[in-house]
């Protein structure tokens, strides 16, 4: 990470990485979604609506991983004063917010035919909604700090404190047994049959690559904007 602290060195890595992540991400996400829609059997209980997991699970993972990225960038900024940490945190936030929104929307659409309701104030759904609003707060705070020429320390503290919501989201299905089903995919295995499960790793990796590409593109945009601002200041001085 410290090797990439130099913006010029970071850009030498980011330019080809953006293209590769976009290409691999698009290919895997499209293949995974097409396979999930056409090649897998319907579930014996959920029927065809089970196909929504191929987009819902990756978006839930990326909604949470995005905030984990913000928390890591915050630590890096507050402890090591990494020069690109604040840029990284600000770049990850819109992608995290988008995938948290996709998670909420696809979950709600899945809930109507499966649970009979669009929304329920249960632990998992509510904590995920809180995460989405926290993203909006982070984006607003980080943008305001940047416009005022701040280092982004307030946003970093907010990002770090906000990480407390991640274990709440993860364990919500165990702590509050309401409508959302318990964990069906874990590190050690899954309760979902392999005939249904196999396209999921494709969309997981595919959407993760697209998330990475979006974050890198935002970082490149911020670095270019900073370069323009610095040059304008020098020209004005």
């Amino acid at each position, binding site marked *: 990470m410290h090797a990439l602290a130099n913006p010029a060195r970071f850009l030498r890595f980011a330019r080809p990485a953006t293209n590769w992540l976009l290409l691999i991400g698009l290919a895997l996400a499209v293949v995974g979604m097409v396979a999930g829609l056409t090649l897998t059997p319907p579930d014996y209980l959920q029927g065809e609506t089970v196909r929504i997991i191929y987009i819902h699970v990756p978006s839930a993972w990326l909604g949470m991983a995005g905030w984990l990225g913000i928390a890591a960038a915050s630590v890096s900024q507050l402890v090591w004063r990494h020069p690109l940490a604040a840029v990284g945190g600000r770049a990850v936030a819109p992608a995290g917010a988008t995938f948290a929104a996709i998670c909420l929307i696809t979950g709600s659409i*899945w809930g109507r035919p499966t649970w009979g309701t669009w929304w329920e104030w249960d632990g998992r759904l509510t904590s995920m909604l809180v995460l989405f609003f926290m993203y909006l707060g982070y984006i607003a705070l980080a943008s305001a700090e940047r416009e005022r020429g701040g280092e982004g320390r307030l946003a970093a503290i907010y990002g770090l404190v906000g990480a407390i919501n991640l274990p709440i989201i993860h364990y919500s299905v165990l702590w509050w047994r309401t409508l959302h089903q318990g964990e069906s995919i874990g590190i050690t295995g899954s309760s979902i049959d392999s005939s249904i499960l196999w396209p999921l790793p494709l969309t997981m990796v595919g959407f993760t690559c697209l998330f990475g590409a979006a974050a890198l593109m935002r970082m*490149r945009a911020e670095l*270019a*904007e900073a*370069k323009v601002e610095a*040059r304008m200041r020098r020209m004005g001085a």
Partner: protein
Amino acid sequence: MNPWPFVIAAYGAAIALTAALLLWAYASMRRAEAAADALKRK
């Protein structure tokens, strides 16, 4: 209840939002890098 309209709506929303994110990130990057290059050439 026919499940397919729900499946299509979920995929449509996910694809539209992901595409919007990528297009916005790409457009902002291109705009910023073009402005930086133009300033460098001056």
